[in-house]
């Protein structure tokens, strides 16, 4: 199928995921292709964010849809098929994660083309590139559970309920992981004041700490008087 035909297929097919799954189950390969075109980019980005390898991400897309095709008979998507597909993609991505010591091209290389097409001033582009480098490095320091939540929310745009379906845990847990992830990121980003990040201020928690802090903040002139 040519690119134009694929785009047409993607645009025209307004059926829900459930309808497409049922049609694909009956052997309609065009319905399966419509599902593929609907979700391939999101899965590719998810794989790219975790593995940082574009070719591995393409393989993750293919493997995810291969598994979906094999599972068509037992798939019963209530709403969207996206959580199921993303859950498979997350598992595949973590199975393909580079081993320690193996250096792959960074995520910035994968998105280099996007930088060059941006129509902004060189200084703002450089600032954005630096911000991206620092933030993505900080995201890499997160544990897998927290990183998945951050990536799914900020990169793939999933809401908390969808993330809960993907990672198979309650929404409250997702909220907690997102909160922890953001605070962890803030602590890392605080090391870069040139990017406008301020470290979290220390507030006294006990009465003794509060008194010592008040004494330290008291002007010296009053003591002498």
């Amino acid at each position: 199928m040519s690119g134009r035909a694929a785009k047409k297929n993607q645009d025209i097919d307004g059926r829900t995921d459930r309808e497409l799954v049922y049609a694909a189950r009956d052997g309609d390969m065009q319905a399966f292709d419509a599902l593929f075109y609907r979700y391939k980019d999101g899965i590719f980005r998810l794989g790219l964010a975790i593995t940082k390898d574009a070719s591995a991400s393409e393989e993750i897309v293919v493997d995810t849809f291969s598994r979906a095709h094999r599972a068509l008979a037992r798939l019963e998507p209530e709403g969207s098929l996206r959580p199921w597909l993303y859950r498979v993609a997350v598992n595949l991505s973590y199975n393909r994660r580079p081993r320690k010591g193996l250096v792959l091209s960074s995520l910035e290389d994968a998105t280099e083309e996007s930088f060059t097409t941006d129509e902004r001033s060189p200084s703002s582009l450089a600032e954005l590139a630096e911000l991206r480098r620092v933030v993505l490095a900080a995201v890499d320091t997160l544990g897998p559970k927290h990183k998945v939540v951050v990536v799914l929310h900020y990169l793939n745009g999933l809401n908390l309920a969808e993330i809960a379906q993907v990672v198979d845990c309650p929404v409250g847990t997702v909220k907690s992981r997102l909160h922890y992830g953001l605070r962890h990121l803030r602590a890392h980003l605080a090391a870069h004041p040139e990017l406008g990040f301020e470290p979290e201020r220390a507030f006294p928690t006990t009465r003794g700490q509060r008194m010592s802090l008040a004494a330290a903040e008291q002007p010296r002139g009053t003591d002498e008087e």
Partner: protein
Amino acid sequence: MTCGSTQERMSSVLAGAAGRHELLDVEAHVRRCARCADVYQGLIATSVAVDRAYSALRRASAVISPARVRFALRIPEPVPASVRFSRIAARVNELALAAAVTAFAFVGSASVAPKPALVDEFAPDTANQTLTHVTASADDQYLLRWLRLGRYATPTDMLDPAITPKAEWDDSGPTVTHERAGLLR
């Protein structure tokens, strides 16, 4: 509302999952509590930074065909109806051509096939007589000879008019005509 519960709700506020009531509660608490206000401001700044960092990657797309999935699953490529019809038409064409060639071959071979030899049905059936050969009559022998002469003889206008062919009973003189005609080989 305590600081702990407020901070737990901050992530849902940042994720856009909080209701209006929850949002107002958080903002009211943040106005009163300096520590929660600091945490809230930090989370907002971090959230914006992560969102901006992923903005370029959000535009990334995979140039993959679903054919790769079919290849991985070893499913044959679906054939469009138009291609299927053209394949059927081509097959019918091939069959028609083959039939035409076969028919031509049969008809051609029938027309050039040797006709059965004439058999003299009234001839006596003897062991010495060959039934498959017909003995030519005297007139036929002359005709055959004439035909052979006509084939090998040089046209008369090409002959030397000075040399007159001799009669059959005249043994003297040149036999140029016959020699040139190739009859005396």
